């Protein structure tokens, strides 16, 4: 396996690099296969969905991005952050019902085409704000603090270097290298 494949496998995603990127935003970027997996062709990953409806998992990924939108962060990191809900739903019917009900409420508020069918972030955020008193919203939001921001793969995108002891700290690596003051 390539490094990317190894990383994807560890994160519970698999590499599917055989489709071309399609136009049309998030709704089109993640396809749902006949076997119920989510497929993101442009980012070359797939996620098997076992506990939730595939459409629900797709919506949760967009909800995650709308809660903590980082334009430099690819969908796959939001997918990794949210896949735990599919695992929880697979093992717990009540959790599954709560998540499906939350997403159904979002879809209901969004109207035809559902939440992922609303093309503009501002409109979706307005829907989320209206649903933010739902305990499931707070569960998802607070869960993202660790499940999104504790992914080591995204730290370099924010300029955070993580573990430093094995590199001898920063005493010879720029702890005082500021030049613009």
């Amino acid at each position, binding site marked *: 396996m390539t490094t990317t494949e190894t990383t994807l496998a560890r994160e519970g995603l698999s590499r599917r690099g055989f489709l071309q990127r399609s136009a049309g935003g998030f709704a089109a970027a993640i396809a749902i296969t006949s076997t119920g997996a989510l497929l993101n062709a442009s980012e070359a990953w797939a996620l098997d969905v076992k506990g939730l409806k595939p459409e629900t998992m797709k919506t949760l990924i967009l909800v995650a991005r709308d809660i903590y939108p980082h334009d430099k962060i690819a969908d796959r990191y939001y997918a990794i952050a949210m896949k735990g809900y599919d695992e929880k739903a697979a093992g717990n019917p009540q959790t599954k019902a709560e998540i499906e009900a939350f997403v159904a409420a979002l879809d209901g508020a969004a109207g035809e085409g559902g939440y992922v069918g609303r093309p503009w972030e501002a409109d979706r955020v307005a829907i989320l704000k209206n649903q933010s008193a739902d305990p499931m919203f707070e569960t998802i939001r607070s869960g993202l603090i660790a499940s999104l921001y*504790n992914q080591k793969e995204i730290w370099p995108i*924010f300029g*955070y270097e*993580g573990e430093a*002891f094995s590199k001898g700290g920063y005493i010879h690596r720029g702890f005082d290298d*500021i030049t613009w003051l």
Partner: protein
Amino acid sequence: MAAKFDQNDDSVVVIVGSGAGGGTLSNELAQKGVKVVVLEAGKRIEYEDFINDEWDSFGQLAWKDMRTTSGDWRVHKDFPNLPAWIVKAVGGTSIHWAGASLRLQEREFKDASTYGRVPGANLLDWPLTLAELEPYYAKAEDKMGVTRTNDIPGLPGNNNFKVFKAGADKLGYKECHTGRMAINSVERDGRNACQQTGFCFQGCKWGAKWSTLYTEIPKGEATGNLEVRPESHVAQIEHDSSGKVTGVTYFDADGRLQRQKARIVAVAGNSLESPRLLLNSASSKFPDGLANSSGQVGRNYMRHTTGSVYAIFEQPVHMYRGTTMAGIMRDEARNDPSRGFVGGYELETLSLGLPFMAAFLNPGAWGREFTTAIDGYSNMAGMWIVGEDMPQETNRVTLSDQKDKWALPVANVHFDDHPNDIAMRNHAFGQGKAMYEAVGATRVFPTPPYPSTHNLGTNRMSANARDGVVNGHGQSHDIKNLFVSDGSQFTTGGAENPTLTIVTLAIRQADYIAEQMKSNSI
């Protein structure tokens, strides 16, 4: 060679907790030939095993056992079961602390006299003066290797400090430097010099920052007079019919209830666990808990008027590189009521890694106002406010309805900000913002207090038994052979990080305990 004492040996001093207070007291007594058993609730994790990763380290070190909260402080809303960010391990919170080692100011021992009546505040003068503590402060600074004392050079300033210092200079502040830190700037006492690694809060993997884990405790063990028992959670302090304490019961690593007899018991479990233990030790003779004839056990909880200021600049800072608390500005630590509050505050640089910045910058926030701040992480600088908060009788640790895994009631921590605390915090937010804007910040954030690291005052010292729990030696007013040896002794909090004073009091207390034992007074 570490000692091993019989559980029926009633000649030992039992110390509950191994942090800055308990760990120091244990070594000081062991050096004097006193036999000591330290009971520590947490595991023994040596410094090589600390983790340079915020969440993993939190999982390894933090006290995560159930606690509950109430009151108007935001911690109650955002972190209802995490009132404090402190450590459950041998070495206690001396593993996590940042290292800032400042003496209390002379007037801070005399708040009631200095400030006069402050409505709602339960102010009291300490039964101690700075002059009485100075020789012990000197011993503590030498023991801990505090920079800018004992001819130890200051640490070099990192990027976060350079931004902070430039802002302080622009505002005309005079006393701003890289601090008095119990972090080796040069090799000392067999320990490494600081390698500017960051992750000070996650335990220093170089052993450069002073912690009882790898200084006091092994030194005490080397005398043959000290036994440390990790994973020993003390349940109750026991007493005889005369009211003298006779030992403690504790749950061992396997959950079995054990008993250790003792000549003296010293409680050093921090300002949440120490009052909890005294309250959980209530008996028919002491129905309100041990040492509680004043009713002050658990009251007057203080946590410092904290808060942080983070700012984003046009150019990179990389604040996380190097010492976490890399510098201090002390000009606002004076008492100047013309600012709209009594007491003062210090500003100290601080940084968080990306994961904890996401958790603490503005807990509960979401959307682009939040994420654009995180997007600016590499260009961010940060500082922390440490100010004197007002002791209030109603800010207190009580026994919760909830129980822990041994069916012992857990601590509930109630805290409401005093108007003086709020006025001080707002002033500090304003000055911090001005410092950063003076050097070109494009956006500044007032960050609310984190779960408390400076937990103080819940078994306070007092001259009169009716006003507090312990005397000037940390000896309980009610029971002569029961001592308190942690920050819960503080009568008031001062504006300074408390660890140096906790260590200082422990050194002084050890002298007193040894004398009292020698004269058979206890």
